[in-house]
């Protein structure tokens, strides 16, 4: 796979670390809604298709990226800085 880091340019998979599902939203830290926390920490949509996910360019600029990638074909549809798009 080739991920187009917005800072460094297109780089090989081996430079990146997968950081998981980016569909989840961390509950309000003051919230004690256990089902919301359970969903955030343990539940995954596990999409078969275009999946929104975090990758860190750990072997490069170390930025976290939000990548939309097909889990069926590995085709990458979009890449953006997580800081700018995180929910």
């Amino acid at each position, binding site marked *: 796979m080739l991920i187009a880091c917005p800072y460094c340019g297109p780089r*090989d998979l081996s430079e990146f670390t997968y950081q998981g599902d980016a569909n989840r939203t961390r509950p309000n830290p003051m919230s004690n809604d256990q089902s919301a926390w359970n969903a955030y920490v343990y539940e995954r949509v596990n999409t078969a298709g275009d999946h929104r996910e975090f990758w860190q360019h750990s072997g490069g600029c170390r930025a976290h990226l939000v990548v939309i990638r097909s889990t069926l074909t590995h085709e990458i549809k979009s890449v953006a800085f997580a800081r700018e798009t995180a929910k």
Partner: protein
Amino acid sequence: MSPRRAHNGGRIDRSTTLRFTFDGTAMTGHAGDTLASALLANGISLIGRSFKYHRPRGVFSAGIDEPNALVTVIKGNLREPNVPATQIELYDGLTVESQNRFPSLAFDIGAANGLAGNLFAAGFYYKTFMGPVAGPLKGTRFWMFCEHFIRRAAGLGRAGHEPDTDRYEKMYGFCDVLVVGSGPAGLTAARDAAADGKKVFLAEQEPELGGTLRWKSAAIDGRPADDWVASTLAELAALPNVTLLPRTTVWGYYDDNALGALERVCDHKAHAAIGEPRHRHWTIRAKDVVLATGAFERPIVFPGNDRPGIMLASAAARYATEYGVLPGERIAIFANNDSAYEAALSLKDAGAEIAVIIDVRAGVSVAARELAREAGGELLLGYAVTNTSGARRLREIEVQPFADGKIREGGTRAFVVDCLAVSGGWSPAIHLASQAGHAPQWDEALQAFLPPAPTQRWTGAGAFTGAFSTAAALGDDIAVNEPEIEYDPAPVFEIRPSGRKSAKAFVDLQHDVTASDIRLAHREGFRSVEHLKRYTTLGMATDQGKSSNVPGLAIMAAARGLPISQVGTTRFRPPFSGVSLGALAADRHGHFKPERLTPMHDWHVARGAKMYAAGLWHRPMIYGTGGETVEQAYVREARAVRETVGIVDVSTLGKIAVQGPDAAEFLDRVYTNMFSTLPVNKARYGLMLREEGIAFDDGTTWRLGEHDFLMTTTTANAGKVMQHLEYYLDCVWPELRVHVTSVTDQWAGAAVAGPNARHVLESCVDGTRVDNDALPFMGIVRGEIGGAPVTICRLSFSGELAYEVYCGAGHGQHVWDALMAAGRTFEIVPYGLEALGTLRIEKGHVTGAEIDGRTSPRDLYLDWMLSKKKPYVGSAMVDREGLLAADRIRLVGIVALDDRPLNGGAHIVERLGEEPRGSIGHITAFCFSPALGKYIALAIVKGGKARHGQRAYVSDPVRNRFGPVEIVSHHFFDPEGSRMHG
């Protein structure tokens, strides 16, 4: 009669004679020979033995698709097994052995298996060897007894136990166009792309570029094909934007046009040049790929089709034309398409006699008839080969009339021949395309699978696309003069005489899968292509079914009464052909993980430290002084810390600079306790949890300025903590103005601990006072040691008065030397991890053995660190019922009551019985405590504190250590902490 060198012709260099040995027999060949051609030239036709029945086998192909002629190449004490003789370039001194035979190739007792062939049909082993249900051979024993012999009989070549001393290399290549294959289509594609100014890689698995043009007769642009190849290659070689890669097999097509390729740099040499790797593995990232991988000829399956001397027609032609070798003197041709007629003429031109051309078709093209006439010999249309004979090589074939897919009885004729050249049509080499795309498409006219629609950026060219002629490969602009033959074969894959018991008809030659095995699989319900493959092992041999795949599917399709298009084919997966493991590991082989050494590493080693691997780091375990045991050494070192002063290298601790206006707020969120209240120039111990409320890491964090913190982590978790922090800053709290930087490698650290620690510092630190007022517990000062700037924090892991001294990594040794010099008066002792562990166990401090990813802060009695004033990572889930359960295993201390050493990983039980049962926990760390004079340990035990004062037992069956212990508080020594505050 036997194969022999032709009197002239071929592209070999007859003026260069090369010596080689085969099974110890000295032979010669010429430069340009492969081992296969050289063996044939020496009259050798028996080269290998098959996998299951140990049948005698000879050369079947002239390329990478070879199933039969596998040998072991020996270089010094290194063995490379299972190399096709067709892939070995001859060099002077080449030494090879045949394989899978005992006692010799000519007489192999394993061939007895063939006598019981029906017993050893596909899947036989699933139906037997279960053994008795009771008695001494019950369970798996009988099977394992039988398996022992099966394993010895199976396998092909023998690999060696010696470490491979050759070098393997890795290379990244980037290009606009990667052309795979250098036949006419590949050369044209490369030339066109190069002319457009593209950066081009042209990869060819064979040693010479040119593909079929090296042995097919065609005139291009009015000159011989090899002239055209030579001038095209010269043109390409002169271009700066073209890289030619001979001996390079593109084997894998991965995501985003990343292709793996193996370059065999010096397999064809007796010795590598200085610095030359044996193999070079390429990862090629190509904007576009042109697949010009050609096609494989496939055989027709018929009884007795495996004798040495029976080979693919194109291979026979290639031996004659390229290598100047006659695979036989009197040759028969058996075909279902026209391409074999070209081969017949090539063989005749090289000096062989064509005895007969047998074609299953009733009629053939004018071009084929013309070729047959020129080649001489009888033309038998509407015939098929139905049997062969000959002990270790082909002597005679039988043919019978054939029509409507069936043998017609009667009319049997026999021909005495020493070679049978067979063509059952052509299969495009779609492997890479299939790896990178959808399912291949069956083409009725060509009777072959064509490449699927691409899912990646590739285009196809030449025979790969099903256009098999040279003219089609070169395109319209180039004039080609070649016979206008029909490549479309008759849909005949198997000749199956009816009525009488016939010889075995092999589909997968290497694995001895026969046509009747395939029908057996069908009969037993293993009918999908994947079941067929898995049940019979069809196509799973080293040649990966390159010649057997389509005939096998065709036989299954016939059995099912379905067209081949509905039976489909298995998906091709990497690699296209075998890739040396050495090349894939390349230079990382043996040391693929970097070793991390602290700035003081050499000093430790010079002082006799026994080093210990902690993750990637190497740390002193003990500093042995002559004749001490490990225990004596660490007890001496730990005692010195308690009694005077010691020094330990703590450079390996993870260090992260946390900086920015919101740094304090950020730390409040990631640590369970409060950091925003920490004054500048003070440090605090912090605990981090995962979101789940499980302990993650701990360490001290120092406030160096209002917005400037230095976080320390455990050595093991430094990378993970860094990634954890970055994740939260980027993905969860992007609003926080904080930057984190790993500075682990930038700082060297030494901890000076013991009652005399302050005196040591006082005598070497300049620019600051270090007394209790200037540097109270958890205080930070900056100064100089030996002229080098240092930051000193007074904190203690050992429970003694202690300081951590940090300086730039480049000053590490200098500062360490200064501290050692200053400590000489106090008999300062360097101590290692064992003493460090001893001191912390006495104090009951936790580390990675207790923070093992499963324990909660309460399990470790660290709940006092859980702030109630603010949320933090983990706060929402730390109170779940499972984390509060009474039977959780929690931290305790253990004292051995039998004065014998304990062991990490030993379990704790309430009582000892016949069998070890009833574990209530385990020991995480142990030592002999010099302070207490006892063997003590930390443990995690069900109930924790509630068991203090109870008698229990250590149960360590894997080390056979059992004995009484007392469960006590984990704070063994100075629980009030008076010593470190002093």
